[in-house]
């Protein structure tokens, strides 16, 4: 049963930040993680701050080649944004398979990031486009790369008095590919077994930039940087791709749980990274020939 809790309902961002500064409370957006947690093993009497009334935190702004997404933007908002398929293809692929429609209507991008779960589906795509997060508090704002925001298992740089205000990134270059795949035990409402996002940028027939971000295979979502480096500076041959995929698998630190074993997860990283890199190379290469 859901234990009783206190819910503060600020009407403005300032009010919310004041509440966060003065009272020990957890920001509550869609509640799609916090409420099941509370029901499963929560204690009574916790305090939450509802972000429901803070409209300015929700929505996507496209400014030139920058995308600025409010923290309260829902997963289904991402699917409704007509520019998003160009702005972050992997994010759209992800949103399509994120839980199910009901959860997507409620779950927010900030919630998914700040909960800090290793299986947070929104994070691999955002890491693959080098997203930055802006945190705000009564004391001021700070911006840092998402990559350095993630610290460990359900551990982030988020401070108790802060709200994640925006996530922002630069639209990938034209001659690039940005892909995502979620491996789950069923198609709808699945907790991810392995999540992979990749970006490959091609310049003059060689790979100038690569991103490989992996979910559910380490204490936190992470970038397989050693594997990324293998790809830089040349064409992506089958051998290079396989070597990078294997390196990514080796960099994973998965656990055994009821969904899959660590051994399987490593294998799946190898297979999926190889597959996505191959596809990325082929599609971005195709764009070059256009």
């Amino acid at each position: 049963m859901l234990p009783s809790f206190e819910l503060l309902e600020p009407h403005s961002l300032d009010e919310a930040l004041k509440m966060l500064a003065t009272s020990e409370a957890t920001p509550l957006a869609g509640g799609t993680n916090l409420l099941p947690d509370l029901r499963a093993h929560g204690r009574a009497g916790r305090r939450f701050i509802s972000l429901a009334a803070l409209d300015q935190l929700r929505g996507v702004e496209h400014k030139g080649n920058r995308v600025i997404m409010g923290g309260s933007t829902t997963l289904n908002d991402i699917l409704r944004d007509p520019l998003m398929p160009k702005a972050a293809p992997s994010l759209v692929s992800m949103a399509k398979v994120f839980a199910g429609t009901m959860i997507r209507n409620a779950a927010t991008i900030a919630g998914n990031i700040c909960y800090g779960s290793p299986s947070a589906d929104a994070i691999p795509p955002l890491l693959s486009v080098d997203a930055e997060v802006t945190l705000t508090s009564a004391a001021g704002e700070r911006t840092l790369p998402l990559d350095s925001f993630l610290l460990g298992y359900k551990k982030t740089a988020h401070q108790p008095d802060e709200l994640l205000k925006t996530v922002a990134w630069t639209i990938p270059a034209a001659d690039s590919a940005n892909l995502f795949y979620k491996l789950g035990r069923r198609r709808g409402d699945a907790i991810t077994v392995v999540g992979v996002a990749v970006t490959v940028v091609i310049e003059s027939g060689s790979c100038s930039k690569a991103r490989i971000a992996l979910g559910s295979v380490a204490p936190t979502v992470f970038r397989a940087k050693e594997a990324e480096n293998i790809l830089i500076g040349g064409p992506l041959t089958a051998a290079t791709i396989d070597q990078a995929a294997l390196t990514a698998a080796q960099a994973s630190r998965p656990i055994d749980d009821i969904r899959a074993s660590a051994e399987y997860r490593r294998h799946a990283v190898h297979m999926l990274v190889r597959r996505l890199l191959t596809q990325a190379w082929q599609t971005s290469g195709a764009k070059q020939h256009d």
Partner: protein
Amino acid sequence: MNRMENPLAGVKSEKFRQVGKPLIRTDSPTKVYGTAVYAGDLTMPGMLYAAVLHSERASALLRRVDTTRAKELPGVHCVLTAEDLPASQGVMTDMPGQTGGMTKNTKQPILAKDRVRFCGEPIALVAAESVAIAEQAIGLIDVDYQDIDGVYDPFDALAPGAPIVYGDDNVVASYKIRKGDIEKGFAEADVIVENTFTTQYQEQAFLEPEAALAWVDELEVLNIRSSTQVVEHYRAVADAIGLPHNRVRLRAEFVGGGFGGKEVMTIEVWLALLALASRRPVRLVQPRERSFLSHGPRHPFNITHRTGVTRDGKITALQISFTSDAGAYAKLSPYILLYATVGATGPYRVDNLHVDSVSAATNNLPACAFRGFGTMQANLACEGQMEEIAKTLGMDSMEVRRRNFIRTGDANATGQIIRSAVWSDQCATQALAALGKRPENSQTTRIGHGVACYQQSYGRILWMKDSSEAWVGVEMDGTVVVRSAVADIGGGQSSALAQITAEILGVPMKEVVVYFGDGAVTPLAGTSTASRALYMSGNATQMAATRVRENLLGCAGRHFSVEAEELDMNDSQVFVVGDPKRSMTINDCVKLCAAEGVHRHNLAIFKAPTSEGIDPETGQGEVFPDFTYGAHAAQVAVDIETGEVRVLQSIGAHDVGQAINLRAVEGQVEGSALMGQGFALCEELILEQGQLQTRSLSEYLIPTSEDVPKIKAIILESGSGLGPFGSKGIGEPVYAPVAASIANAVTDAIGVHIFELPITPEKIVKALRRKETVG
């Protein structure tokens, strides 16, 4: 259509006006509009809310259960432990709803006393003024456990020196079949194929968890309104508490899914005790996490087949062993094992047969009834073995099946002669054909087609001596009432009775109201289990309606001076066939009856065939009234790199005898396709040392709407069933072959058989690796 002689078909016409048509079910509008009332919606003035304390340990002594703090909490009216219970101390969990003798002592403590045998065993009950207070009180009960050695695997439980959970040796039940000459059969075989198949716990995962409301009324009758498949539990409640049977009234509300999980009593007796102790109405809706602990899931089975077969695919000998994990209490495990034993050979004729089956008690969750009731596990092994035999012989697996199908007039595993039509071949052929052409494989995707056939009984075990009563009457305005205590568990159980009655009395179906599910005021109909509701209550209703029709036509015949045989009824008119001018409305006909003092109603009882059991040494004898046959075919796509499986098509083809409501039959096929897909691919209750690891629906994975393949139902009608108008039971049968067809499709796709369900991506990857290594 080849329609066989059916002595029970009461209506002269072969052509039905309403039966078989996809009419709107009587229960559909209220469910679609959201106005249907379920047990958890019920409220009463002064109602209290219950909560249950379940054991956190799988095997422990209860040194002390201290309820002092819980009782002191304001708002708590009543806290009950085993100390407070009546002397009987147990509730019967043998075959419910029966008057016949019990085969085993299957009493289970209502609340644990001195010892807990599984994690989840109920220890204490609370009734309080709110759910929150009741939950808080549960948290204030201090339980002092002392862990003792437990046993968590059925093979361990049967080994010498195992901790004893049940009886003297943990053997809950065992059966054997000795038929023909197995040595001779194996000697005649060209090859012998041996494989072991294992299945997992499956949770019913009904949308509606256990829910009920209980109170004592002004006549000192204990009332319970519940989500149950069995109205006759009122007797077990009365016996457990020490009340006379006529002082307990149980009403079955619309049920949001049962699948066997609401066959054995769940929460009713707890609420009865709380209502008696508090003298207030008390309601409980089990939270999902506790629902998992409040009914028995499907038994895990270990099944070995050793099959002797000739080069041309004829089975000459078959030796089968079954071991099932009963969990901590017997519940229905002996019967479920019997179903598996009878179903050991699937839809195949095997003249030389040995079966040895055993169900062992462990400190795991007590397993119980689940759609298929042991037959589907047996069937899964049978159908997997067909593929392995075919592979060994280099034959098409359908051809192997064809050479072994049981046929009308053949004896099944227990020597029972099959009297109804066996259309296994037609069903399998049509289902496979409906899959159409295989899509092309891609670099990493392999397409597979699979089929599975089955034999599944409908109706209860013959020595239960089953019967069902129904009452049909016509009101003075020509509208019709059916009274039957049948539990409507969502399969259209009550609606089918309306459709049958409408057909026989020639009134539109909307003119028929079915009052159902009341153990006190509607005639007892028996359980909505064992795919028997339509068979039994349909027949009783057909009998009652036919007699009412006879009475009405008798009066009309006298009025028109014709024989009753010359009359017919349709569109609420009674008329002389071929002479439409001589007709009257049903209202006028009913008034004639009333004036003549002729009954406008009838109470009928339908009695199923009976037997006195099977020979314990040979397992030979009649066990079931009849069987349903059919097939399911599946098309899957397997990702050979990640092991992911996508079911693309799922097609059920079944000889239903006669569809009563076509949409309802299709609904059963569609639901079974998803439930079987879950069993094949992703559903598994995982226990570690008796502790449930998959405690919620985010960990226990049933297929979602996103996982739904293209589903098709192909309905064949032999008219050979024992149900009304030649119908057969269909609720369980349609489910029986689904998982096997998907498993076989996966085998077809990847060229390697996975013998252990569920077929996870991980198992596929490992199997493919082994195949590569072995070459």
